[in-house]
């Protein structure tokens, strides 16, 4: 009965979405106050019903109810419970249900918490949210029903891809989805504003916390996905420019640009049409990402189903939503008053620069991700675009962004003078130059590119704190702290990337048991290779002793990489072993045994690699602090009197 209950809840939620849309439409025409009383409850109940439906599917997976087709195809009775739970969204239908649930919950959240919008814009926002939700309900119910029964039920179930049986998977997709779909709120508010004709700084202030919340989730989700790929795939890389990774990066870039231009619109009432466009692009990128991943048009471990009908459905939904919004934008943009004027050397000017650079990076990633699809569709040519393209094309823009970051946050609104700013950025500039000189002397073989990247990130780490100079720290608004911390996180993250790509060391050898090797500052010794067993796998495990090269204290740590053979489905995977130090990680992979009895070992020393993810967490933390500052009531009054301080 659980499956039927879930399905009924889903149908009811879809019906309520339709009702919500219709009632909101009526309100927009008649402005009948009585209608307002029911719109909010409808949105909230719709969210709850959808959540109930998702809870039912989760129960089915936890019970491993094999009479449900989806469970039978993606789960197995012998799986640990945490992977049964994660299995709920480790497949096409389940992950789409999660997607739609978050969409519905976003609508409910607007109904419950959004108090800053005027009545008409608010209703128009819920109308748009209901419209978008309804399309995705239809998609689930007509082409991806997660509750379909299977008769007769199999006895075991066919299991979950072992690569996906990992604790990282339990949290990575939901986090990312909260980010993706959370951007729908900014989209709905923007379209709602276009419908009601109120595009002003109040709209931007209403949109900001939602965009910020979605962006925090996106940041964490991307970082989690990157770390998952890093340790689970065993390739030692943390970003592959894989289309699925790009699909998550593109909404993040758009959301980052949006957060900055929102600040201008909320504070100075400028960049209005630009901010609206970014809000539309952000959610469009989320939908494009969903299309890329869910349509199976890219075959990768993420594409669970190769089904053209589904792809066409999502594509149609995306086109309707985005084209509709853009059409409305084109019709209404002439009525949007032009914003206030500013000098280009000003905070506004710096943010325009930030936006143009970010959008350029977005365009480059977009082109590189979709080019192979177009080449195949229209020229029948198989082309793959890989990391060399993305690195070469994006890195100049990233460097420019980092330089802009030194000065941007220090600039005053409206206009500033170059001399004042010059004095303020001199510390970070000198530090960066000194570091370049030191590195050129100490490590003369360093590629110029790595040297530049490291110097830029060190300079940025200092520059990011400059906006706090000369302020009374106790009276500084939280959003300022949020900005400072997020920018510092960028510096940490960039430093990790630069250090890892410039200074990693590799040991690739075939060794006998008992052999010792040296990598970076470590002695590694293959002590033994033993069989081992887990819940649903058996493995060959290497036991590697690691000790510091110069340390005589005989302190030994163990690295235990494995070759695992999973049952149900039968599949071999390689489990890397990691040893973390404050300044990097040792990363070991066990290869095959050669005919002469030696074992292949691949060990990397990756300096400061963990800083990439620490940096991402710091960035998200900065977002969280800003969000608290924006929503805290007591502070809000102060802020409205003195916005962005």
């Amino acid at each position, binding site marked *: 009965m659980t499956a039927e209950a879930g399905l009924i809840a889903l149908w009811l939620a879809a019906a309520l979405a339709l009702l919500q849309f219709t009632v909101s439409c009526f309100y927009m025409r008649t402005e009948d106050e009585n209608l307002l009383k029911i719109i909010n409850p409808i949105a909230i109940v719709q969210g709850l019903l959808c959540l109930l439906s998702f809870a039912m599917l989760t129960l089915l997976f936890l019970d491993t109810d094999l009479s449900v087709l989806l469970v039978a195809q993606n789960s197995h009775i012998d799986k640990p419970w945490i992977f049964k739970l994660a299995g709920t969204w480790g497949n096409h239908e389940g992950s789409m249900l999660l997607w739609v649930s978050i969409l519905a919950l976003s609508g409910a959240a607007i109904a419950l918490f959004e108090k800053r919008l005027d009545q008409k814009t608010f209703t128009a926002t819920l109308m748009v949210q209901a419209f978008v939700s309804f399309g995705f309900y239809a998609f689930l119910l007509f082409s991806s029903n997660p509750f379909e029964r299977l008769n007769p039920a199999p006895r075991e179930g066919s299991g979950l*891809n*072992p*690569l996906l049986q990992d604790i990282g998977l339990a949290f990575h997709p939901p986090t990312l989805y909260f980010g993706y779909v959370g951007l729908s709120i900014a989209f709905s508010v923007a379209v709602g504003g276009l419908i009601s004709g109120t595009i002003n700084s109040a709209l931007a202030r209403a949109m900001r916390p939602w965009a910020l919340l979605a962006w925090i989730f996106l940041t964490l989700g991307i970082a989690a996905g990157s770390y998952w790929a890093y340790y689970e795939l*065993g*390739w030692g890389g943390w970003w592959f420019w894989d289309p699925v990774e790009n699909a998550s990066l593109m909404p993040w870039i758009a959301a980052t640009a949006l957060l900055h231009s929102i600040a201008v619109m909320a504070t100075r009432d400028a*960049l209005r*049409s*630009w901010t609206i466009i970014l809000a539309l692009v952000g959610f469009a990128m989320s939908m494009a990402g969903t299309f890329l991943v869910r349509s199976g048009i*890219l*075959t*990768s*471990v993420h594409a669970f189903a190769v089904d053209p009908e589904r792809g066409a459905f999502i594509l149609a939904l995306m086109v309707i939503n985005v084209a509709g919004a853009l059409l409305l934008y084109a019709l209404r943009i002439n009525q949007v008053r*032009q*914003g*206030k*004027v*500013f000098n280009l050397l000003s905070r506004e000017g710096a943010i*325009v620069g930030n*936006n*143009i*650079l970010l*959008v*350029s*990076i977005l*365009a*480059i990633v977009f*082109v*590189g991700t979709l*080019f*192979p699809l177009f080449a195949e569709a229209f020229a029948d*040519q*198989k*082309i*793959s*675009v*890989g990391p*060399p*393209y993305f690195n*070469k*094309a994006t890195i100049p*823009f990233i460097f420019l962004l980092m330089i802009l970051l030194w000065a941007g946050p220090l600039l005053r609104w409206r206009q500033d003078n170059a001399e004042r700013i010059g004095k303020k950025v001199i510390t970070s500039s000198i530090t960066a130059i000194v570091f370049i000189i030191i590195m050129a002397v100490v490590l003369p073989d360093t590629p110029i590119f790595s040297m530049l990247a490291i110097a830029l990130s060190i300079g940025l780490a200092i520059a990011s704190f400059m906006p706090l100079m000369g302020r009374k720290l106790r009276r500084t608004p939280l959003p300022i702290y949020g900005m400072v911390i997020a920018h510092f996180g960028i510096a940490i993250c960039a430093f990790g990337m630069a250090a890892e790509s410039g200074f990693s060391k590799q040991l*690739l*050898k*075939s060794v006998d048991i008992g052999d010792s090797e040296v990598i970076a500052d470590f002695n590694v010794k293959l002590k033994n290779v033993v069989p081992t067993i887990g819940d649903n796998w058996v493995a060959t495990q290497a036991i590697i002793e690691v000790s510091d090269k110069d340390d005589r204290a005989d302190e030994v740590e163990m690295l235990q990489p494995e*070759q695992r053979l999973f049952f149900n*489905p039968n*599949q*071999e*995977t*390689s489990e890397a072993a990691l040893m973390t130090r404050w300044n990097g990680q040792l990363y070991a*992979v*066990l*290869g*095959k045994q*050669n*005919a*002469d009895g*030696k074992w*292949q070992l*691949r060990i990397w020393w990756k300096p400061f690699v963990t800083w990439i993810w620490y940096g991402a967490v710091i960035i998200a933390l900065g977002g969280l602090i800003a969000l608290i500052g924006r929503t805290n009531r007591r502070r809000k009054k102060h802020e409205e009197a003195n916005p962005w301080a």
Partner: protein
Amino acid sequence: MKPKHQRLLLAVIAVIGLLVASLIAINALSDEASYFYTPATLNDQEVEIGKAIRLGGMVKQGSIQSAKDGVTINFIVQDKDQEQLVRYTGVTPNLFVEGSGVVADGRLDKDGIFIADNLLAKHDENYVPRELQDIDMGNSQALEKSVIQ
């Protein structure tokens, strides 16, 4: 400056920025997009030595040979009627076996050997590298066994 002019100026700056980005993108694409080859198309066409390309096909039965260092292998990638020698140094993917589909990233060296930097085998039985989906491997039985399954 009037608001109207400011908007125009910003629009012009944005368009110029995007144009520069597109130019860089197109330039980088023409340099770095690696074309996909099978042994047959690789032998038909002149491919520049050292240019990044992808090679896809099936690992020929009995062709994998380990070199003395224990971490380098030489093997033959074949399609319907052509073959290409490939050399790879590193730990091979778990699903890399003879008779199975493979995609290799790498480049041709001056001796005509394909030097692979990276090997992609199927992730699992449901996964087929996109490029291999509709290649005629000739040996249809082996193909079914390894790729379609």
